[in-house]
């Protein structure tokens, strides 16, 4: 059975990579994801993996290397954060449109402007429409487990899309937690070998990748990508089921905590869900009917399922760990509110932008959010929809 250990989220992901033994890693250092290629290059130096480690001169070249390697017929991985992901931006779209299932460990960090090395989700949320599957982790264990599942999802014939496995910078990437690893051979068996149908190095059938795609075809190709993303939802659940059979750990598109009879709820992504669960438990102890939805899969967005999960609550606060400067709320809010539109009895819904650039999120901050939801339920007045949490005015 599993191997009990104490690991940082970065080391756990590096170990998952080692167990998978990908063909190519293209990587460039950036805080807080740097440790992943650091650990990994040590595995390469020690001959523990067969991987070609390509220490590129930029994240743009890291993603370009992964695109080349994946198109060549191999498995390619990378890790990055913040500005690194931003520099890859152009190539993220290329990887997705060329249907290359690259796997990227994103250690979420605030985008620069001004520079800040701490956690929020502005990097991956900015890339949310690039055509990548996005899976988020609350804990180190989840970061590891998600990475082990990622390639099966991305490489599935009905999907063929790149996958971004996200965890919160420093909060899980650097904090050491108890973790249960899967044995090497079990991981290898679970992930399996990669045998793409067509690839550049296939001798009997040369392939051309990355055409100039005119108006006569471009839209059909985009529709195919959109269909693949729709297919991903079922595949993610299929793989999660297999993973549960192997490890006993259950994963879905999102996790519901105390939602059965909840009257108010929070929708949240990432490590802050742990803090929020603590708040829920404390409020439950006081007899308050509060619940929580932790989104694991943001792309594809589980629209109907989330709507269903929120169908019986009276008021919802959607928590965005990023600003989108839409002047009306963050991306998780936009998706969640859109999902709820089809409900017969729509809950009142507000948005909190929180935790930007590493702003601490405490249990009492979350309790404050539930108190605000309480007010909405009692007064029937939603008030300001677009709010910021724990910010000096």
């Amino acid at each position, binding site marked *: 059975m599993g191997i009990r250990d104490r690991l940082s989220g970065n080391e756990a992901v590096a170990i998952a990579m080692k167990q998978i033994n990908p063909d190519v890693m293209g990587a460039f250092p950036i805080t807080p994801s740097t440790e992943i290629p650091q650990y990994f290059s040590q595995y390469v130096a020690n001959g523990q993996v067969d*991987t070609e480690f390509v220490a590129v*001169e930029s994240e743009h070249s890291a993603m370009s290397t992964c695109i080349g390697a994946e198109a*060549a017929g191999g498995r390619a991985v990378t890790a990055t954060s913040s500005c690194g992901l931003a520099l890859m931006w152009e190539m993220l779209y290329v990887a997705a449109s060329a249907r290359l299932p690259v796997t990227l460990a994103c250690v979420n960090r605030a985008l620069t402007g001004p520079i800040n090395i701490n956690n929020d989700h502005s990097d991956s949320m900015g890339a949310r429409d690039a055509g990548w599957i996005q899976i988020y982790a609350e804990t180190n264990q989840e970061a590891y487990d998600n990475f082990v599942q990622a390639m099966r999802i991305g490489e599935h014939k009905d999907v063929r899309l790149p996958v971004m496995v996200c965890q919160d910078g420093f909060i899980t990437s650097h904090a050491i937690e108890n973790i249960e690893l899967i044995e090497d051979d079990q991981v290898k068996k679970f992930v399996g070998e990669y045998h793409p149908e067509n690839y550049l190095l296939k001798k009997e059938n040369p392939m*051309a990748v990355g055409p100039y795609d005119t108006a006569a075809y471009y839209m059909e*190709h985009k529709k195919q990508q959109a269909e693949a993303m729709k297919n991903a939802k079922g595949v993610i659940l299929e793989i999660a089921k297999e993973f549960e059979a192997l490890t006993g750990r259950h994963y879905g598109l999102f996790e519901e905590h105390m939602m059965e009879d909840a009257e108010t709820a929070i929708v949240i992504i990432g490590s802050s869900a742990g803090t929020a669960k603590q708040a829920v438990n404390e409020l439950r102890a006081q007899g308050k009917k509060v619940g929580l939805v932790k989104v694991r899969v943001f792309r594809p967005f589980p629209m109907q399922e989330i709507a269903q999960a929120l169908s019986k609550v009276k008021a919802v606060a959607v928590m965005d760990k990023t600003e989108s400067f839409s002047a009306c709320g963050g991306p998780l809010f936009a998706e969640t509110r859109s999902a709820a539109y089809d409900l017969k009895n729509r809950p009142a819904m507000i948005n909190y932008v929180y935790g930007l650039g590493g702003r601490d999120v405490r249990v009492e901050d979350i309790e404050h959010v539930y108190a605000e939801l309480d007010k909405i339920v009692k007064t029937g007045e939603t008030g300001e929809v677009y709010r910021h949490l724990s910010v000096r005015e």
Partner: protein
Amino acid sequence: MAYNLKEEVQKPERLSGGHRMCAGCGAPVAVRGVLRALNPEDKAVIGSATGCLEVSTFLYPYTAWQDSFIHSAFENAAATIGGVEACYKVLKKKGTVDETFKFIAFGGDGGTYDIGFQSLSGAMERGHDMVYVCYDNEAYMNTGIQRSSSTPRFADATTSPAGKVIPGKPQNKKNLTEIMAAHNLPYVAQTTFIGNFKDLHEKAHKAIYTPGANFLNIMAPCPRGWRYPTEDLMEICKLAVETCVWPLYEVENGVYTLNYEPKNKLPVEEFLKKQGRFKHMFAKGNEWMIEEAQKFVDEKWEALLKKCR
């Protein structure tokens, strides 16, 4: 076996005809010349930066490339083909692939001297077993003849127009071949289309078959941007060499060799006057421009001669 053009052109084309490059364009001539230097039994993966070459040879659902081909973006042909090569090494080790593959990236001067410069420098420094070929036509031709760092001084380009106050591009051409030589690569060479293409062929063969990351810079004129009649392509290239505007040389492990020294070095205006982009240099009162251009060519030529001796 001695080089024989007639025999060489009997080889099956690896870039099929019917693509959409202009008549009189140097780029496909450069590509076919390089690909002919591949041993016929060897397979190749060709990469290309975004540019005329890419958008004119691979329009979905048609491709002119007989070998596997990859285009990903403008500034990263080197990193992309480097990724392919890295994967090849692993798959070869694992036994998944057993054939010999060669890796060649093509980029115009925009994608090589400018926006792709970092990616190129990185891939060369890392020493992927590949060749990067720049087809240098001295401007951003695909977007409509904008100046690049490869555009020569005084050239009339659409973002360095010859106006009443500014007479074309103010800066001299960047010397990328020298910059690549400074990377201490196994093989760096500069060539163009001369005579029976022997120079290009031999350099391409060395670049492809010398292990490591190698660089080939091929002057590949553009009739639209340089404004010459399409049939003058070969004549323009010859004049570039005879005036020493584009010397033919190679650098093997740091050792410089001049491959051709004109018996009578022609004055630079012989090269300039054939091209519409330099027309304003011949207007009355602009004699100083030709003098400046000559001075620049002479200085660079002398410096190169010193390195080659």
